[in-house]
């Protein structure tokens, strides 16, 4: 019994290998991109629109609203990264109902890659928003003593992101596999439904945490010259 789809290797040549994680990821990418392409091929800009367009608009609008609620001022700037993060993780979880499919997010390599992307994206957006100096200065807030703790926090939350998603997805798939061997038929179906729910919750948590981290990095700290609000 394998713990990760990384161990399902289809092709191998030296350092390069084509494992199940990459293949399933490509599959998900194909579904997402082709589906988006098909739906957005005939977008309607007037008041009448197709149900699929409605669905996509609801999703995009929902993501945008969530990003906005987190505190990011211009959600359209971050929706590409955060929205894709949510859709990928959610679709990876939803597809667990397909027999033979194994979620690529059940692989620690995938969740680590996603966490690394977040780890890079946070300073990326932070520097873009408030400059390199401003972003680096935020590590010394509130005092310089906090600098190492801030760096540790940065690293540990990235690790937490990766392990949390991996643990949840992997355990869900693992439990279903174990239950299938013990109590087939009825009980695994309930666990699958539960897995769908936890998968969606994890997608939401992952993307919201990423949004919160980015929001924290892009939030401009008040300069000392600014007058304190009258109390």
């Amino acid at each position, binding site marked *: 019994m394998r713990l990760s789809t990384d161990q399902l290797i289809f092709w191998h040549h030296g350092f390069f290998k084509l494992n199940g994680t990459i293949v399933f990821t490509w599959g998900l990418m194909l579904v997402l991109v082709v589906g988006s392409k098909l739906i957005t091929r005939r977008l309607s800009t007037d008041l009448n629109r197709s149900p699929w367009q409605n669905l996509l608009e609801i999703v995009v*609008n929902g993501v945008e609203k969530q990003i906005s609620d987190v505190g990011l001022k211009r959600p359209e700037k971050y929706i590409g990264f955060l929205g894709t993060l949510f859709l990928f993780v959610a679709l990876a979880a939803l597809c667990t109902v397909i027999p033979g499919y194994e979620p690529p997010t059940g692989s620690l390599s995938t969740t680590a890659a996603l966490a690394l992307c977040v780890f890079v994206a946070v300073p990326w957006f932070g520097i873009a928003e408030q400059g390199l100096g401003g972003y680096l200065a935020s590590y010394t807030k509130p005092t310089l003593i906090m600098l190492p703790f801030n760096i540790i926090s940065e690293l540990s939350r990235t690790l937490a992101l990766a392990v949390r998603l991996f643990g949840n997805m992997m355990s869900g798939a693992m439990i279903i596999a174990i239950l299938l061997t013990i109590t087939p038929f009825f009980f695994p179906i309930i666990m699958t439904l539960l897995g769908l729910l936890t998968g969606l919750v994890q997608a939401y948590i992952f993307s919201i945490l990423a949004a919160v981290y980015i929001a924290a990095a892009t939030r401009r700290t008040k300069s000392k010259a600014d007058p304190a609000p009258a109390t």
Partner: protein
Amino acid sequence: MLIDWFTVGAQALNFLLLVWLMKRYLYKPILNAIDAREKLIAQELADAATKQSEAQKERDEFQKKNAEFDHQRAALLTKAAEEAKTEQLRLLEAARQAADALAAQRREALISDARNLNQALTQLAQREVFAITRKALTDLATTTLEERMGEVFDRRLRELSGPAKNALGEALRKNSNPAVIRSTFDLPDVQRAAIQNALNETFSADIHLRFETAPILVSGIELTANGQKVGWSIADYLKALEKGVDELLQAQERPAPKPEVKVAPQPAKPRPAEAPTPATPAKSEPEAKPAPEPAAAKAGTKAT
């Protein structure tokens, strides 16, 4: 080993590629479509707001015009009502004047008609009364009556006195022609002699007489000499009566008659003081008035 670093890198690349593809094929078109729709809706809302404001403006203008129209209409109605009232008063006044004129004209015509009718009736009645009277007295005039008249004439002559007697005597004396005695019937010789005697005795002279018959006298005898006349005849009574009635009628018609003109003919009753005045040109002979005129009138009335 749970982490395969090649897979990590590959998945990171895959994810970044997916981000780029999703941006290109999903977010951008969807957001653009949403923006376009929002713009469209905003445009439509703006258009609607513009149209609403225009409608509001037009409504205000319409209400203003409506108010002005109402005001003008009320003013016109008031003016028309005043003009109608003035015209009504004018027409009423004109109608009243026309009615007054017509009523006056009609009253005049009525009065004129009544007057004419009254006059005609009066004249007719007068004519008829006198004709009847004349006929009755003519019928009653007999020789005996003539004799009686002769006696009365004789007595009158003898009773003459004063200025009348003097004037008649003067006339008889100056008269070269014989005095004329006219009577309705031919007087008998006895009566002629009585009259001759009476005249001769009264005036102490021999007076020449000529006797004539005149049926126009109805019944009576008269003496004419040099413009002086003494006599007694029913024709004189009738003439005096007719003259009196004419005077009375003219006196009644002269004052403005009142609307209630009585068309009923009123027989002119001669008053006793006026009726019996004989139409004798000799004013100097008041004694020539016959005494028995009421009897004659009564006789005439009874005869009808």
